[in-house]
């Protein structure tokens, strides 16, 4: 027993020594990855304070020694750059539109090793006020505490981190439906054009060519299917994991490429059923994006339909650009048609295969 106790004491002593060294290192890098956003809503204005740790601010400024920001003099010496950092990192939105914030006095907060800045802005005539965050993202452990007071009452108490990116306050103001429609159509279009996997899936479906009727059938099948799962997932009725959906989207691209090579020999064209089947999968992918867009709870239906319209507009613009080009190419250079199909399909398979492996490994 005594020997065991001695052994524990020795190992504890060793552990303590190492701990002292390692904890010191950690503290130097960042031991308090916290920030605070405190707002007070008045009828015409929003005022408050943002408090950020000197380590985070120094990192954003590229300043080697955070301690230079711990004093009033240090803050004054870097005031312009600090204002730029706060303006860049503080993301307040009214109904999804980013708001302009005026920054006031900056003071050191010694007990928090932080800098505090006062903020003010005109209260937007929006039905939802959103605070996006966390304030800093260079460390994935960063957390931002958000408080919003209205008439002396804490209406919002939230914590923003990598798993929860938005705090929101329903202001009670009436929402403009036209604004919702415009915003979510724009988001739908934006999502298609920033997502190479969706574009490649659509291109893959077009490579084999076909009559206007055939292409219309393929596009309609895809649209019908993804509209169903987009609605189901957005309404929260079915929410499969992204770990499953993302690899399946990549797999759909591979399958479409293989189908093109298979159907080239004059076999039955299965693109419409494939587009329908995989449309369900892509719909879940669209929904995951839509859920991140601070959906207005009182205009959920409008937002959902508008986003879908945006997706369709983007898809149709791709179809109406690429399909005529491929058709024209086949008329001008009939020999190039099969070559474009094979090379294009192999490219689609390669890209889809790469994403499939990448997403499976990441999962």
């Amino acid at each position, binding site marked *: 027993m005594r020997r065991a106790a001695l*052994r*524990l004491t020795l190992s504890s002593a*060793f*552990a303590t020594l*190492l701990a002292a060294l390692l904890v010191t290192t950690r503290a130097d890098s960042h031991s308090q990855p916290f920030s605070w956003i*405190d707002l007070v809503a008045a009828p015409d204005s929003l005022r408050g304070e943002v408090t950020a740790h000197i380590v985070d601010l120094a990192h954003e400024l590229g300043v080697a020694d955070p301690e230079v920001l711990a004093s009033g003099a240090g803050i004054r010496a870097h005031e312009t750059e600090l204002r730029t950092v706060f303006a860049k990192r503080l993301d307040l939105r009214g109904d999804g539109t980013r708001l302009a914030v005026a920054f006031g006095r900056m003071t050191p907060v010694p007990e928090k090793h932080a800098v505090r800045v006062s903020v003010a802005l005109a209260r937007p005539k929006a039905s939802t006020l959103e605070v996006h965050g966390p304030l800093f993202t260079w460390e994935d452990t960063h957390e931002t505490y958000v408080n919003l007071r209205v008439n002396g009452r804490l209406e919002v108490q*939230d*914590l923003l981190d990598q*798993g929860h990116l938005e705090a929101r306050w329903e202001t009670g103001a009436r929402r403009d439906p036209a604004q919702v429609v415009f915003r979510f159509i724009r988001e739908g279009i934006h999502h298609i054009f920033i997502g190479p996997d969706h574009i490649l899936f659509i291109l893959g479906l077009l490579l084999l060519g076909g009559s206007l009727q055939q292409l219309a059938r393929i596009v309609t099948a895809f649209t019908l299917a993804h509209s169903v799962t987009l609605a189901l997932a957005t309404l929260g009725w079915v929410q499969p994991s992204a770990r499953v959906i993302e690899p399946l989207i990549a797999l759909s691209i591979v399958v479409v490429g293989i189908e093109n090579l298979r159907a080239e020999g004059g076999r039955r064209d299965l693109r419409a059923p494939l587009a329908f089947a995989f449309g369900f999968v892509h719909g879940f992918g669209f929904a995951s994006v839509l859920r991140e867009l601070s959906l207005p709870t009182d205009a959920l239906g409008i937002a959902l339909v508008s986003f879908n319209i945006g997706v369709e507009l983007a898809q149709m613009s791709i179809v109406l650009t690429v399909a005529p080009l491929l058709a024209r190419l086949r008329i001008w250079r009939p020999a190039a048609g099969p070559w474009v199909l094979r090379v294009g399909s192999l490219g689609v398979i390669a890209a889809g295969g790469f994403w499939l492996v990448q997403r499976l490994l990441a999962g």
Partner: protein
Amino acid sequence: MRSSFASSIVSFLLLATPAAAHEFWLAPLRYQATTGDTLVVRAFVGTGFKGETKPLAARRVVRLEARTTRQIDMRGLGVNGSEDYARLVLPDAGGASVAYQSDFATIELPGAQFDAYLRLEGLEGPRRERERTKSTAKPGRERYARCCRTWIRGSDLTRATDPLGLALEVLPSADPTLLKRAPFRVLLHGRPLAGALVRAWNRPLDANNRPFDVATRDSLGPVYQGRTHADGTVTLPVDRAGEWLVSCVHMAPSESRVEADWQSLWASFTFARPARPARR
């Protein structure tokens, strides 16, 4: 009693791992309070009984309760982002217990790091299961919750020994401020948990029974570690004066497999033993 030099090395190679591998505990500003005193309790996260203050996250609170002459629900009383988890005036000299349980947060560690962390925390079941299913190369996806309790001693010992119903609870069965070796028990959803690794740290308090600054004080190794018996009990040598942290971790397959593969509960119990055995 188990301890090994190797485990110490592993433990401190793991110091740089994120939140899940860190202890989380509650502590009062001062381990002494009587009728009419205002008791302020804060939370801390770190390793080796050293760390940082962890502000209150209202969104994460599942339970926040104080036990004095009665059980008080403290949820909604603290301000989000504040350092104070609980602030209450003591109604009598019986002492107080404050308990906190968080919701689940998720974390993912590379396979090797996750396995080292399982070894460090003595979580043999999950480690063997990963080996059996040949999944040690896969990242460790975990959701974890904190279940902490602090006790400020007074005349009513039941305020320390009665369970408060946390998902995982470590608590004394007899007065650890009087006995040289005090029995503790670990309860999982109110039932004794056998085979759980319990560790204890001890450090001195200042002359006013206040803990030294948690961020600047030295880091320590545990003074005890051992596993609970079949009835969920373990006996700790608590003869040293000062502040004590007793902790235990339990891990099981996740109830939400979409979120994580494993689910852990981190329990802690803090108290202070006076320099001389207390007399009542």
